């Protein structure tokens, strides 16, 4: 089509659209008006009744869409997508003691799960020993209790680390848990060069949203770059950071904010790695992403597509990466915990299905589907099985995975993808300005002056108000409610308080049996090295092999790096 014929076609579509609105639509509206005055996405992007080729008139197929597995990756990270291999079905799990988590992992593997994902309990996440007063009430609750290498050995007992990839949701102490995983691998005869998996290791979003930080941002970033540098040289198949929008969204952000803050954090890590003197193409291919799958179906799909194109463009044009693997954004998705309701919890199975389908249509590389009982408690085995089955049904029965990027070319989805990219670019501009041209400095400044926290708090308050005024309907919460007594609740999982006792005993036993002089020596070396600029990974590895606890190692870092406190705004 020549430019001229395209222009005249667009003109005709515009005229015809106007005619349609004034005649066919107008007549229909006289009989039944629209359900509401304004239609919008969860990111407050107004949406029209109908999209036509005019809305994506400026799109250039080759520059803006391209082909799967090729720049700008809008249509997919891999050339064959799910026609070769389905996404990795990776259910996040961890509960009670190491032994219980090991059993849950084996149960999931037996049921067809293809990757592991470890949830740690909060004391591990914050670097406290199970016996610390700070750990009271939390032991084994939100994840598995890991104090020392001995616990990690039990978690992976009987699981072949050369065959399965493992994702670990750990941030401030990520370097320590990675070291433990490497040590477990060594004991099993799997060298670190062969280990595959991911550590979350994304500290920026902790200050912005999830709040499991320990040290101030700068020393935290040093630990992250230490792991990147170490893995680049020794653990080449490891994903060194899972740059996470998930928690930003769960904290209440919009989809646009999730997209923008996550990618901006990604650029900050790239700048941090380059500032260490690393070549961008040596480490960028191992950066991976983690997004939320929330309720607004098409907006979520547009978000994933936009994320791929933004990353590709910035990595190529701004950071001058030359390796196509540095341009290609790969991501994990988890369905939105925040969207689950305690009322009529079985309805959550349907919410999760729609969210998971959005992730698949958006081209995710791996997926966690939430269990329907998670607004009530930690998930039961039965609920976890249904969640995994949801993925298997989408994969094997729906046909949704047979065509790559099946919504590509949809007037609405392409328009929305452009829209989200444009909105994200505005945020990048702002963050860059905060950092005087540096996305890394911009992230630090934005955290310290509460820019992210305020943006997220405002969005979450607006969301709550819309639910209370019923502008947003939550089925069985603010509409279609039934009597509380009729609301059948499932059997839920309880973590016994005995787990705490048992774990504290385990830790004491390990400490009494280890070579304590060696352990203290390792901690002392770590203390001295932490004060230098040397890469800490080898010394952390020595310390975990000497059965130093996560708490002991983090205490050394607390002493050297200090701790971070935030101003609490609401």
């Amino acid at each position, binding site marked *: 089509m020549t430019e001229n014929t395209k222009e005249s076609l667009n003109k005709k579509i515009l005229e015809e659209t106007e005619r349609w609105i004034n005649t066919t639509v107008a007549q229909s509206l006289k009989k039944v008006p629209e359900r509401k005055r304004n239609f919008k996405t969860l990111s407050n992007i107004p949406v029209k009744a109908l999209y036509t080729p005019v809305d994506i008139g400026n799109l250039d197929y080759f520059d803006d869409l391209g082909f799967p597995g090729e720049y700008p990756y809008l249509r997919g990270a891999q050339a064959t997508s799910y026609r070769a291999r389905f996404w990795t079905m990776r259910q996040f799990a961890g509960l009670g003691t190491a032994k219980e988590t090991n059993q849950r992992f084996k149960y999931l593997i037996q049921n067809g799960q293809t990757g592991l994902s470890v949830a740690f309990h909060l004391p591990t996440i914050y670097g*406290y020993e199970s016996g610390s007063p700070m750990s009271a*009430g939390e032991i084994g609750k939100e994840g598995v209790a890991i104090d020392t290498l001995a616990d990690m050995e039990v978690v992976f007992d009987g699981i072949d680390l050369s065959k399965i990839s493992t994702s670990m949701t750990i941030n401030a102490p990520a370097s320590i848990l990675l070291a433990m995983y490497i040590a477990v691998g060594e004991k099993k005869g799997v060298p670190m060069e062969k280990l595959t998996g991911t550590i979350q290791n994304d500290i920026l979003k902790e200050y912005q949203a999830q*709040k499991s930080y320990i040290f101030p941002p700068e020393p935290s970033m040093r630990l992250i770059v230490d792991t990147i540098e170490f893995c680049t040289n020794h653990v080449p198949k490891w994903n060194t950071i899972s740059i996470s929008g998930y928690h930003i969204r769960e904290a209440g952000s919009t989809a646009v904010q999730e997209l923008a803050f996550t990618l901006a954090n990604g650029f900050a890590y790239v700048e941090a790695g380059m500032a260490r003197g690393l070549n961008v193409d040596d480490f960028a291919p191992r950066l991976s992403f983690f997004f939320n799958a929330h309720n607004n179906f098409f907006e979520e799909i547009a978000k994933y597509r936009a994320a791929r194109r933004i990353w590709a463009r910035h990595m190529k044009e701004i950071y001058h990466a030359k390796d196509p693997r540095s341009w290609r954004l790969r991501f994990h998705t988890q369905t939105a915990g925040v969207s689950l309701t305690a009322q009529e919890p079985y309805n959550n199975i349907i919410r999760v299905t729609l969210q998971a389908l959005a992730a698949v249509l958006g081209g995710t590389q791996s997926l966690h589907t939430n269990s329907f009982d998670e607004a009530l408690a930690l998930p039961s085995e039965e609920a976890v099985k249904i969640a995994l089955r949801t993925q298997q049904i989408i994969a094997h029965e729906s046909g949704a995975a047979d065509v790559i990027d099946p919504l590509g070319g949809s007037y609405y989805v392409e328009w929305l993808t452009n829209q989200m990219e444009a909105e994200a670019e505005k945020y990048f501009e702002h963050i860059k300005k905060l950092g005087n041209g540096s996305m890394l400095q911009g992230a630090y400044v934005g955290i310290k002056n509460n820019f992210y926290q305020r943006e997220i708090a405002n969005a979450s308050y607006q969301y709550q108000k819309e639910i209370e005024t019923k502008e947003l309907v939550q089925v069985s919460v603010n509409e279609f409610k039934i009597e509380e007594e009729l609301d059948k609740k499932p059997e839920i999982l309880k973590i016994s308080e005995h787990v705490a006792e048992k774990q504290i005993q385990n830790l004491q036993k390990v400490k009494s049996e280890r070579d304590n002089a060696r352990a203290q020596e390792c901690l002392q070396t770590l203390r001295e090295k932490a004060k230098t600029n040397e890469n800490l990974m080898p010394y952390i590895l020595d310390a975990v092999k000497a059965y130093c606890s996560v708490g002991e190692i983090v205490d050394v870092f607390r002493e050297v790096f200090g701790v971070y406190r935030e101003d609490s705004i609401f």
Partner: protein
Amino acid sequence: MERKIRLIVAKPGLDGHDRGAKVIARGLRDAGFEVIYTGLHQTPDDIVQSVIQEDPDALLLSILSGAHPVLFPEITKKLHENGVDDVLVLGGGIIPEEDVPALKEAGVSEVFGPGTKIQEIADYIRANLKR
């Protein structure tokens, strides 16, 4: 002018899920209460100290990690030991229904789960103040 009802919203324990606590703090402020938010990672002693210093009419505790059976009773016990018996204590978060009777026994007046309207909490506080 009548003194505003004064509230402390607190996050005990290590759990960083503060979306609910913040939304409630802001919603109650907009509903006419004076609200102090403690921020995250508060120990029971931190919270009791805040109550003694700020002298609120009600204390709203939020936990989503499952630590409530240990931390809520610990806080109410310490309040009592410090002679604080006229502050209304409320709980919120992911709290299984079967845990509620024990929490009430321990001095938590009411527990509000996911999906509660802010207005409902505001009404409850106004009707049940202990002073």
